């Protein structure tokens, strides 16, 4: 009331103007939309000039939010003239019980492909993404990016209002303009209009584009997806006469060879692939078998880290390796062939492939050349693997496309296109550097941009329409295998965003199309029960694409000759694993999530090998100037073991300064060096060292285990000889203690982590952050070592620095039986619970930090500053993402992994209501639930035969630092690899206990 009282003395003219804005033909959808009108801006300028100055794209969140507060109260005032129908709960809606979350199945997009999700919603507020067990691409798992979807939904810097020439305008005005345009189009048959879409598999979008093309025969549709790779399409089109998409069955593969394919980290089917792959490598007793993975790669990936044999070669050399292996497979390898890693290596690999036969699988990397794909498919065909470990399906992302971004620019330049609608992508940022998109787009008469953010393209556009977030809209999407999911909203569009089908419908003359109706129309053949089932299950039954029978031609062509210059540096482009092409750059969770191998946060670096760094005299953080094709960038160096020599890996996605979170991050813009002809790798990179250095923030500073038995690992042969290899050469764990043992009448929770299964994908860390309201701290604080992740994945290198073994170890709290932290806390803030947890009581903690000093695992995290916003007025929409079941911690208190105690308690309450025991597997921790390889098992150790008890009974179960007598409840299963005993350097009986 006081706010309204405060604004009474406004001149009547202003109020009238505001009312006009509010009572226009198009009703305003949100208060914010109204608040962003020109009248309102003028009013703000007159009344609050200090704030008005900071209005345009202010990075000051606090001011922005204050202003929002003011604008909302004003808008409320104007709304008094028309009664708004608000219906309070007279009868409580069915299924909504305050405090009890609801779960909805939907699918999230990953480079256009769907991954099924089940989203937890608290009173209408989505807070957590889980995988959908029924969805083929998820199988219950998620990746790190999916976890962050709930945060980007509530990003206060998302575009909030349509903009016309950069000025806030109403959606009604946009529709008017579009109606005019549509009128003209109908007459000209779509002449001059182009759509630019990104990679999508949506059947609705496909159908809409199809009908638009029917309606406007001269309409042109282009696709720009900076992370799409065309090599597979080209190769299959050439081999089979039409583009086909391979899908792999790692569960059937005994021997896998990857040519630069990061199938565990990059491909749309990665979660399913990881699950299948890990299932074939699950060893609990000496009779178990394992698959074997060979990886030839041009930059270190988590797939390479999981390999039994990993060869790092320059990107241009992968083709040569593939040629040699194929030649060897056909019995034609001789010394004069192209150079493989070594002859011995090649023969051993080929023997393995031959033995495996149809259970072998050769996977080409999407970023490699079409010829590598042809070679790989030919090898699979020769081995008989096609139809067994490898299937071809119709491309799920097939769209009636007329060309790519270059073609669009060409069309604009020649004048055949004068209006364009950019639906999703941000070509001004992500285009190849040899394509002057800005110049071309500036010639357009009309440029409409639809997107989540007011990005570079939006700034150039005449019209910008805010997009609905994927948790806000209705759509449909195909998974990697073609399975369709209906995307349903978890919440009404927060900022009045529109869905892609809505925009396409506008073009077709449907101005007030309902989001849901547009999708429902695509699936009109489905009856209501079927529709509801599809929504509930998250998949449309039997919608997976059937495998296509192919016949492999004898002639697969020849490699494109390329002038290989041996002494030149090559450049390899990769997408940042979390930011992708930069679309997630404004997500603090993803910025601060350590990259799997480099452990870098808040920035990227130019990755070089130790030998190359030595040769060029480079050190970590040193700035180098990288030049290619007349463009150059400055980037800090990061030396990474396992990187091929003379190859610089640059990542895309950083260097973006739109959005206050993205602006905090360091790093360079990799797109600046990327050209149309060489999107993924190229030679002739010029590197000039500079004298300066730049900050590169990492969360792990030491990479070697220092001879300590931290990650214990052995080969399969060694495991068979000695299943208890984890005990070899390590001191026995002491058993005596001054304190009596704890007694457990009920459950005794415990966790087991299988290091053979862990691929280091970081999904668990991201899930933990989302579940437990873990704060992000920003680059400055992260550089000081103040990051807050409760769960971290340690990455160690072992062996030779040029060809290291890469080992991952997830480290949550160990929940020690004899916890060193418990005895030193002076205020009883960390205590042992009746069910074995080592609990942290936040409101008792006074912050002596003694517990952390005394924790040998250093898993405790301290709120050094106020990392969370507690003032509800300035906290902004992001506070809605918080899990209401978990306390938000304030400054000065210690926190750590709680084994997701809130989930335990929830299940216990349910079990008590139902008067039963908690079932085995009923309590699932957030990390466990997200894990694509099911490396984490959690449960009751008191229960005989529980999953976790079985895991801990495995012979290679060990506790980290057990000689300290902390008796951790979190234990590990030693990592078992399956190298080929015939390959030197990897003797078959190797074990490594530090």
């Amino acid at each position: 009331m006081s706010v309204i009282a405060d604004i009474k003395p406004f001149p009547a003219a202003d109020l009238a103007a505001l009312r006009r804005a509010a009572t226009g033909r198009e009703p305003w959808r949100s208060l914010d939309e109204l608040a962003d009108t020109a009248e309102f801006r003028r009013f703000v300028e007159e009344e609050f000039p200090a704030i008005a100055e900071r209005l345009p794209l202010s990075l000051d969140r606090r001011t922005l939010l204050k202003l929002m507060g003011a604008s909302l109260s004003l808008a409320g005032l104007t709304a008094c003239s028309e009664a708004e129908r608000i219906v309070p709960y007279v009868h409580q809606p069915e299924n909504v019980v305050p405090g009890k979350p609801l779960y909805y199945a939907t699918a999230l997009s990953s480079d256009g492909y769907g991954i099924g999700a089940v989203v937890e919603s608290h009173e209408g507020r989505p807070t957590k993404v889980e995988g959908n067990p029924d969805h083929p691409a998820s199988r219950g798992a998620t990746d790190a990016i999916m976890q962050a979807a709930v945060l980007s939904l509530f990003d206060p810097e998302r575009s909030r209002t349509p903009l016309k020439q950069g000025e806030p305008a109403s959606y009604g005005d946009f529709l008017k303009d579009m109606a005019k345009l549509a009128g003209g189009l109908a007459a000209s048959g779509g002449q001059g209009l182009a759509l630019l879409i990104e990679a999508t598999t949506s059947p609705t979008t496909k159908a809409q584009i199809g009908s638009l093309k029917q309606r406007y025969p001269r309409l042109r549709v282009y696709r720009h997806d900076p992370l799409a790779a065309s090599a597979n399409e080209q190769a299959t089109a050439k081999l089979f006469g039409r583009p086909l998409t391979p899908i792999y069955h790692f569960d059937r593969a005994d021997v896998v060879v990857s040519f630069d394919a990061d199938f565990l980290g990059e491909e749309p089917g990665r979660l399913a692939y990881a699950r299948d792959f890990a299932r074939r490598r699950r060893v609990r007793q000496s009779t178990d078998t394992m698959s074997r993975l060979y990886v030839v790669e041009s930059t270190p990936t988590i797939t390479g880290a999981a390999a039994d044999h990993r060869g790092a070669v320059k990107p241009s050399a992968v083709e040569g390796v593939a040629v040699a292996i194929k030649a060897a497979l056909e019995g034609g390898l001789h010394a004069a062939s192209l150079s493989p890693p070594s002859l011995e290596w090649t023969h051993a690999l080929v023997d393995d492939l031959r033995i495996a036969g149809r259970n072998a699988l050769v996977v080409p990397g999407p970023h490699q050349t079409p010829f590598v794909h042809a070679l790989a498919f030919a090898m699979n065909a020769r081995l008989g693997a096609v139809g067994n470990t490898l299937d071809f399906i119709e491309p799920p992302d097939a769209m009636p496309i007329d060309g790519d971004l270059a073609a669009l620019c060409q069309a604009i330049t020649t004048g055949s296109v004068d209006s364009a609608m950019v639906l999703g992508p941000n070509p001004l940022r992500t285009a190849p550097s040899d394509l002057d998109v800005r110049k071309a787009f500036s010639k357009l008469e009309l440029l409409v941009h639809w997107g989540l953010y007011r990005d570079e393209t939006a700034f150039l556009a005449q019209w910008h329409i805010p997009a609905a977030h994927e948790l806000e809209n209705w759509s449909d999407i195909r998974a990697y295998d073609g399975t369709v999911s209906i995307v349903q909203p978890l919440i009404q569009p927060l900022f009045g965003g529109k869905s892609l089908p809505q925009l396409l419908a506008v073009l077709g003359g449907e101005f007030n199309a309902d989001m849901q109706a547009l999708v429902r129309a695509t699936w009109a053949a489905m009856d209501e029960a079927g529709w509801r089932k599809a929504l509930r299950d998250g998949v449309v039954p039997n919608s997976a694409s059937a495998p296509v029978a192919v016949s492999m031609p004898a002639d697969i062509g020849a490699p494109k000759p390329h002038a290989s210059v041996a002494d030149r540096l090559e450049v390899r482009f990769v997408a940042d694993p979390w930011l992708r092409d930069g679309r997630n750059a404004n997500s603090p969770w993803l910025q601060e999530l350590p990259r799997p191998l480099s452990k870098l946060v808040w920035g990227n670096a130019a990755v070089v090998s130790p030998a190359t760094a030595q040769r060029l005299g480079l050190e970590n953080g040193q700035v180098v100037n990288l030049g290619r094709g007349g463009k150059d960038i400055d980037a800090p160096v990061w030396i990474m073991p396992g990187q091929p020599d003379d190859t610089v890996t640059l990542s895309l996605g950083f260097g973006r300064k739109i959005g206050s979170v993205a602006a905090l991050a360091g790093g360079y813009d990799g797109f600046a060096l990327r050209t149309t002809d060489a999107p993924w790798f190229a030679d002739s990179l010029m590197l000039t060292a500079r004298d300066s250095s730049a900050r590169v923030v990492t969360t792990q500073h030491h990479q070697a285990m220092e001879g300590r038995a931290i990650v214990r690992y052995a080969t399969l042969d060694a495991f068979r000889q000695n299943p208890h290899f984890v005990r070899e050469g390590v001191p026995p764990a002491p058993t005596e203690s001054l304190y009596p043992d704890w007694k457990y009448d009920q459950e005794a929770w415990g966790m087991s982590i299988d290091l053979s299964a862990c691929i280091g994908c970081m999904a668990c860390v991201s899930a933990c952050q989302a579940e437990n309201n873990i704060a992000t701290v920003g680059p400055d604080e992260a550089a000081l070592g103040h990051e807050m992740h409760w769960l971290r994945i340690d990455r160690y290198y072992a062996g030779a620095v040029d060809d290291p073994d890469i080992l991952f170890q997830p480290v949550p709290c160990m929940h020690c039986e004899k916890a060193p932290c418990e005895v030193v806390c002076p205020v009883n803030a960390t205590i042992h619970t009746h069910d074995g947890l080592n609990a942290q009581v936040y409101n008792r903690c006074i912050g002596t930090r003694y517990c952390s000093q005394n924790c040998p695992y250093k898993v405790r995290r301290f709120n050094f500053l106020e990392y969370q916003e507690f003032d509800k007025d300035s906290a902004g929409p992001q506070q809605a993402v918080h899990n209401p079941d978990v306390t938000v911690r304030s400054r000065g208190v210690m926190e750590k992994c709680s084994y997701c105690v809130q989930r335990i308690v929830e299940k216990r309450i349910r079990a008590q209501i139902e008067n039963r025991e908690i079932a085995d597997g009923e309590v699932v921790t957030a990390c466990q639930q997200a894990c694509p390889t099911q490396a984490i098992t959690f449960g009751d150790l008191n229960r005989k035969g529980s999953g976790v008890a079985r895991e801990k009974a495995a012979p290679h179960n060990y506790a980290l630092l057990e000689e300290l007598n902390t008796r951790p409840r979190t234990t590990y299963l030693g990592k078992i690899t399956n190298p080929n005993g015939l390959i030197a350097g990897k003797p078959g009986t190797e074990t490594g206990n530090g």
Partner: protein
Amino acid sequence: MAEAVAARAEKAVPRAPVLRGRHDFPEISGRISAIVLQGRLPRFFWAAFFVCFAFVLLFLYSITYLISVGVGAYGINIPVAWGTMISSFVWWIGIGHAGTLISAVLLLLRQPWRASINRFAEAMTLFAVAMAGLYPILHLGRPWFFYWLLPLPNTHMHWPQWRSPLVWDFAAIATYATVSLLFWYMGLLPDLGVLRDRAKSRPAQLFYGILALGWRGSAFHWARYRTVYFLMAALATPLVVSVHSIVALDFTFAITPGYHSTIFPPYFVAGALLSGFAMVLTIAIPLRWAFAVEDLITLRHMENAAKLMIAAGMIVIYGYASEAFFAWYSGQPYERAMMAQRAVGPYAPLFWIMLFCNCIVLQLLWLRSVRLNMPILFSIALIINVGMWLERYVIVVTGPSRDYLPSSWGEQSLTWLDFGILFGSLGTFFALVFLFIRILPAITIFEVEELIEEKSGAA
């Protein structure tokens, strides 16, 4: 000429006298009380006081900043979550110890030379403990809840966790502060009586009169006084050992490499005496020069303090050696690696500077000429002060920065706030010393008079 002869004579005797020259009671009472009661103090006194006062303001600003922003403003992090607040705390506690040793232990051992330095040494203890007591509070993430360490029955249902050395620590420091204050005040009573009697102005008479608690100097008073003072001394003496031993247990009790060592309690006590006597010299040398009381605080005092320093210092060096030896002898890879990292790792410069200060420079004190040369002795005292601070810092940070899992290895940095609080507290400490000199007799009047009595009796 006469001075030169006297100096030569002084050098010739094996020990410098406790008092120099001829004195009588009124002269002593007058001279010592004049420092307090005379209206004007020399200009340098106030100049020095205001320099210190500027640091008091820095201290207040730093504390305000800390409380409003949070402990993240220090350089601490994970893994090294303790920093200068702990090392400075240990350092200040150590400084306090020399005062207690001088006043209580030497009293019980009937060492007459303590008489003219015990008062300011006790004051030094008190102020050092006051500074030390602030540090653990300023170290806390939520300093406003420091009282949760107390066993107070309250509605929070909060009770200390008695296994934690921090609780013992809290009790030890609180005991130490209380006993030191009482002991100091008890010792002041006769002198407060003197000041009351000699004060000319009414406010001063009232002020000292109230503080003197009706001291009249009767034989009864003296008899009671003696009994209580000796009892208090007997109470305070074990504290010299116990307080710092308990502080050392903060480290010993932890399993962190570099902390987990049973040598710490005795070695910390020796270190405390070393740094404490260094601080005594740091204060006494300028004091006796500035107030021309070289005949009361004589070279004998200075030399004895220096001798105690080298005695304590050699124990400390033994501590260093044994720490290193047992790290190796334990066979524990973690301890060994930590020790090696201490010598060659990121904190190695601090480690070697510390060894230079505390081991090499200390050896100069074997030379009598050095012990009797006040400028050199003063410099050595300062160097030892720095060295002892570094020792505590090296112990606090190197262990956790190189502990069990190399993935967590990391270093902390130091920020302006770390230094702001350290130097602010130093300034506050010296400002308190100045105020003390201004308000209370810095040299014990009656004990010096006793010395004169004994001396004349002996003559």
